[in-house]
């Protein structure tokens, strides 16, 4: 803009500030920052010493299956028959239709599609079982299962799902009532044994080779269980308990996520099937507003209206009389 327009432009107290022509005084910035650093260090050492930090052991498939093998068997059949949370997740894990969230006609999730392919029946159940060696009954069961028609497989799976809902633990063994579930009894029985021995944990990570750093599949499997959800609830960490921003114990957690987590607690979000995308969109909008405060008339006048600045600069305004 040219000089004349600058001069013509009216002074706006919410946007403009004039260069200071008043007095100044000595001020040691470097000393200030150094002292601040030392103060923070003392505070942090103190709190670290007093309260430490939470470090509850991670839950492995072995921990889970050992603590509750019935839940493990029930979750596993839901992975095999395609009814588990992961199997019905849709993008980015698989092509299951109908569970993607959308805002009106917009569903970014399904537009981007499958990017981290996860096929629970294959990756969690059939794949690991196929690595079992020297167990003819398991190999035979797998052969029978793989040779069967999809409708036969489904019938066995459904029957097993019913039977396993009445399962019990006897002397540490999984006991599933008899039923017409063909080879599935042997398969899930073997998978449960693998899980309890820890072999399944490594079979899942080994899918990526010797150096595993990607636990996506194991975590999805564990997160499908009732056991894992119960652990979260016991630590007061479920979604309706503000879980996302908290951590185990009485630690402050990610308190700065309070606004994001807040929306999940109140209608319409608390009952919405599209809560995640709705809350994300709302937070995106609010974030944009925060970023653009200096340009938004009204919003940028709030400081002047609330007069908090009178308190902040009280020495200055007092000296102005």
């Amino acid at each position, binding site marked *: 803009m040219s000089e004349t327009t600058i*001069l013509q432009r009216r002074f706006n*107290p*919410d*946007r*403009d*500030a*004039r*260069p*200071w*022509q*008043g007095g*100044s*005084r000595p*001020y*040691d910035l470097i000393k*200030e*920052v150094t002292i*601040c*650093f030392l*103060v*923070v260090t003392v*505070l*942090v050492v103190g709190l*670290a*010493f007093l309260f430490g*930090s939470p*470090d509850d*052991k991670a*839950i492995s498939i072995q921990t889970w299956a050992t603590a509750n093998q019935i839940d493990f068997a029930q979750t596993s059949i839901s992975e095999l028959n395609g009814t588990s949370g992961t199997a019905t997740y849709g*993008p*980015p894990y698989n092509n299951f239709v109908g569970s993607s*969230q959308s805002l009106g006609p917009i569903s*970014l*999730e399904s537009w981007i599609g499958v990017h*981290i392919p996860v096929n629970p029946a294959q990756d969690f159940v059939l794949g690991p079982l196929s690595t079992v060696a020297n167990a003819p009954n398991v190999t035979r069961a797998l052969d029978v299962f793989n040779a069967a028609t999809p409708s036969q497989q489904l019938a066995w799976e459904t029957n097993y799902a019913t039977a396993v809902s009445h399962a019990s633990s006897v002397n540490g063994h999984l006991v599933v009532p008899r039923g017409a579930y063909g080879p599935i009894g042997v398969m899930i029985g073997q998978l449960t044994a693998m899980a309890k021995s820890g072999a399944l944990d490594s079979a899942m990570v080994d899918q990526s080779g010797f150096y595993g750093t*990607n*636990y996506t599949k194991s975590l*999805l499997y*564990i*997160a499908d269980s009732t056991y*894992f959800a119960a652990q979260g609830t016991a630590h007061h960490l479920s979604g309706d308990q503000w*879980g*996302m921003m908290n*951590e185990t114990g009485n*630690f402050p957690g*990610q308190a*700065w996520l309070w606004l994001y987590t807040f929306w999940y607690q109140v209608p319409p979000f608390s009952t919405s099937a*599209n809560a*995640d995308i709705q809350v994300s969109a709302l937070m995106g909008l609010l*974030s944009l507003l925060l970023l653009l*405060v*200096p340009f938004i008339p009204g919003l940028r006048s709030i*400081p*002047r209206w609330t007069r*908090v600045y009178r308190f*902040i*600069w009280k*020495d200055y*305004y007092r000296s*102005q009389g």
Partner: protein
Amino acid sequence: MSTTKDQTVLDQEEAELARQWTGRIRRLLVDALPPDKLLPDRQPSYLSSWIYIFGALTIGGLALVILTGTVLALEGPQWWHVSSIGLFVNSMHLWSVEFFFFFMVIHLWGKFFMAAWRGNRQLTWMTGVVTFFFSIGAGFTGYVSQTNFDSQWIATQAKDGINATGAGAFVNALNFGQMLMWHIVLLPAAVVALTGLHILMVRHKGIVTPIEVNGTEVPHQGTQSESDPS
């Protein structure tokens, strides 16, 4: 043996220096931040409020976050599960993060109620907000990189929110290796760079003057408005 260069050569060099990239950038930087602006030893007299300390406290918090994080990185992930010194450094890392955010948020609201974006300081405000968002990302990826129950829980809870936006295809909270890289390389680099930029902008503009309302005119000369290039 040196001979004095003749005048045409000198003129040519002069012209070349005026066009030189290196020289231009140096002049630009020195003009924007001459030493007494970069590290002033005096401040305007209206700078007297406890709220000003929170920017410096945030720097202190960030410095300690980086320092303790560096120690954790030197020992490698999982050290803190098996060593009591490791756990202590981990605790320091956690608490310095909590303080960093606490100070930053007070700083943010302080600057809001001071309308500290006035007089061409919009970019200072905006780099601050962007730093805040990147810090949230850095904090989040740290929580999921702990390799304990909390990281499992937070990752599996948060994945739905991230997936719903479509970003989950690229930002996979369940992929430990990826999260660790975000947490110890990409996001800290961004936060530190943005913070540096933010502070240089503050030094370039100087601390904003008190809000002017009728009757409390600041001693001044001319108007510094949005369109003013200074």
